[in-house]
């Protein structure tokens, strides 16, 4: 179709041949509008889906989208959802997620989504329309400084000023988004630029002189690290979201097994190491297992792999520093190293390559860990396992316990679903009770903690994984932050299973108010909730309300058997249930509270 738009554009100079016979050579050059160029760029990048919402400033781009069929447009119902959907698409697939929004409110609505992706280092390319370049700065209709407003929450952003820059900029945007430490990149295109014409040339490679992402790690540092690991008496491996992003799960598993050390994965790393493995001690941190918290605190050597010592993971940083331990930190981003804790051996590099280097160094080393030290350490870790009593809750035959729903969800889906979540208690229970054995199966907003993430993220996950089982674990608070996307799910036939743990409270807020604010439940009660069954039906889906514990499993089975339907399961759960274990904010890891402590 675009070929039909070839235009006569260049006329070569008249060539005078001997005998004074002159010819004019005419050359056809493909000249496209900026909008067509942008879409061609997406095609070149192999983009299958673009999530977006139209508006005045992107009309030319939408017109170009309409006239091709390689890049499929998914019309969301709110721009925040477009970004989350592109995000879920990226998290579950190793691809770059792409979204398209208009100027002004389009991009401001997208900011929450962009910040969510930024905090979790998710590769996205967001294209936003801008008012015409001649109107910029005049407070034009739907004008906002998109580049300025997103600057603190993107890896990089661009404002295009010339149609010739569109193709090289989009090329750069994809390269920046997925290389190094990934992240969202915004390309802001003024309306007039998207209608100007230029020749389409997609660059085959990118070179940004001021940007050189790390590759392999320094071999001397790796040698030092291996030496320290082999001499450790109480070693611990602490892995994070970086392992998932780098695709280094296989290397991590091999390393952990070769060394025989205990391994924990953060909320962002769940699945990078199989949760059912005996060397896995669970997630550390605020709602981590007792054994993971204690082992992190009391180890003498800590190998941090693609994790960033987040406040929700190590708790009070001074308390953490009280115990002397050697820290080896591998990360692709030097600024993540020694940001919150002192590091003894920093290794900057791509985890996949660094772990391969480390495995080679380990295999060629004649030294071995002291078996008796390791045995004694495992004995200690196992004692903590017993003392912590594992993840547990008191089940009931009267009222549905939220943890029970997640356990049954795990069973019914055979532990093989893609699980997205929103933010709050349900997120923690899903992280604790759904045993993720594969990377990229657990999709949640860890860094920013964005309520409303789960459902739109699930849309992206379902699109890139057609036929896969996708569950969105949510609560009645979070789901209402982007519930309009049920309409998108209907339009695009996305058979997501919404597992809503409805406790009629903003549960995590309520829990903190119970513990730290004298049971004053300020603003945390969700009064006047809708009838979610009717709501789901109104959107054209199947709604189920589950009140009794005995109905949990049959309901899940029935819902997941409906392969073609979106089923909204409204589980009426115990409103007083709290998430344990818990390291209260500002406390140290070993000050973890178990359920019976209260």
């Amino acid at each position, binding site marked *: 179709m675009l070929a039909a738009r070839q235009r006569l554009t260049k006329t070569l100079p008249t060539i005078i041949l001997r005998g004074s016979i002159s010819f004019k050579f005419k050359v056809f050059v493909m000249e496209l509008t900026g909008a067509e160029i942008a879409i061609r760029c997406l095609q070149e990048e192999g983009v299958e889906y673009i999530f977006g919402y139209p508006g005045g400033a992107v009309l030319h781009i939408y017109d170009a989208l309409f006239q091709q069929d390689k890049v499929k447009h998914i019309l969301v119902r709110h721009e925040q959802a477009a970004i989350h959907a592109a995000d879920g698409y990226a998290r579950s697939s190793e691809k770059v997620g792409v979204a398209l929004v208009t100027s002004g409110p389009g991009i401001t609505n997208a900011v929450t989504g962009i910040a969510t992706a930024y905090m979790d280092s998710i590769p996205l390319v967001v294209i936003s329309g801008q008012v015409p370049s001649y109107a910029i700065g005049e407070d034009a209709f739907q004008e906002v400084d998109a580049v300025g407003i997103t600057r603190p929450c993107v890896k990089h952003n661009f404002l295009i000023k010339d149609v010739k820059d569109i193709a090289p900029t989009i090329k750069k945007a994809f390269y920046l988004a997925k290389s190094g430490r990934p992240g969202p990149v915004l390309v802001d295109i003024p309306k007039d630029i998207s209608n100007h014409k230029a020749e389409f040339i997609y660059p085959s490679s990118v070179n*940004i*002189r001021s940007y050189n992402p790390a590759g392999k790690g320094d071999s001397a540092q790796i040698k030092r690290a291996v030496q320290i690991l082999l001499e450790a008496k109480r070693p611990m491996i602490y892995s994070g979201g970086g392992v998932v992003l780098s695709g280094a799960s296989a290397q991590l598993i091999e390393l952990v097994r070769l060394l025989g050390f205990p391994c924990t994965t953060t909320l962002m790393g769940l699945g990078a190491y199989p949760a059912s493995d005996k060397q896995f001690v669970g997630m550390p941190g605020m709602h981590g297992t007792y054994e993971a918290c204690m082992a992190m605190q009391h180890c003498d050597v800590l190998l941090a792999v693609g994790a960033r010592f987040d406040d929700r993971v190590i708790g009070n940083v001074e308390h953490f520093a009280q115990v002397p331990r050697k820290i080896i930190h591998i990360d692709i981003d030097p600024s993540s190293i020694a940001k919150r804790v002192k590091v003894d051996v920093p290794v900057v590099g791509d985890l996949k390559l660094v772990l391969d280097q480390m495995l080679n160094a380990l295999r060629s080393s004649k030294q071995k860990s002291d078996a008796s030290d390791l045995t004694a350490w495992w004995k200690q870790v196992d004692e903590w396992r017993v003392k912590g009593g594992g993840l547990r809750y008191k089940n009931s035959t009267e009222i549905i316990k939220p943890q029970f729903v997640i356990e049954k969800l795990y069973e019914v889906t055979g532990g093989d679903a893609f699980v997205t979540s929103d933010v709050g208690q349900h997120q923690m229970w899903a992280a604790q009770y759904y045993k993720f054995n594969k990377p990229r199966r657990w999709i949640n907003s860890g860094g920013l903690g964005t309520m409303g993430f789960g459902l739109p993220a699930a849309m992206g996950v379902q699109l890139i994984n057609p036929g896969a089982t996708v569950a969105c674990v949510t609560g009645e608070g979070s789901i209402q932050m982007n519930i309009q996307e049920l309409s998108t799910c209907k339009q695009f036939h996305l058979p997501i299973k919404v597992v809503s743990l409805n406790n009629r409270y903003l549960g995590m807020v309520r829990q903190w108010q119970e513990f730290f604010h004298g049971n004053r439940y300020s603003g945390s009660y969700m009064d006047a909730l809708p009838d979610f069954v009717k709501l789901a039906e109104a959107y054209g889906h199947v709604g189920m309300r589950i009140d009794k514990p005995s109905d949990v499993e049959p309901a899940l089975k029935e819902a997941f058997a409906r392969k073609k339907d979106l089923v909204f399961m409204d589980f009426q759960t115990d409103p007083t249930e709290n998430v344990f274990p818990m390291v209260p904010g500002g406390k140290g890891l070993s000050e973890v509270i178990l359920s019976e402590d209260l």
Partner: protein
Amino acid sequence: MRHIISLLMENEAGALSRVAGLFSARGYNIESLAVAPTEDPTLSRMTIVTNGSDAVIEQINKQLNKLIDVAAVMDLSEGEHLERELMLIKVRSEGAARAELKRITDIFHGRVIDESDRTCTIELTDTCAKLDSFLQAVGRDLILETVRTGASGIGRGERILKL
């Protein structure tokens, strides 16, 4: 501790605000910031004077390096370096006091670049500390205006920041 950091960045719209935004977003101090294009017009050279603990300075260097538009960063304070700042200062100066002002200006190797009946404007280029001393020597009561560029820094000898 006071640090003087030099960097080379793409001479592009928005690059300055990326650096300024980084400092405000992460709560780092900026004492002064001076920036202008280099002999290569596609590159700008920036000198930032900041202060903070060793850990904060390490983070500042790393965070600056992380900015896509920043091509090279050097903490000049880590080695031998030179720094200079330009100051223009307008002083109330009448009668006999003028001679005294000129004497102080000479001592500080400054230059009088403008005079009127009641004012005298002096140009002075030196280290930030020297400029502070000059201000003290002149006395705050007489100073009408002070314009300072912020420090510019460069490594000594073979210490070179270049792409």
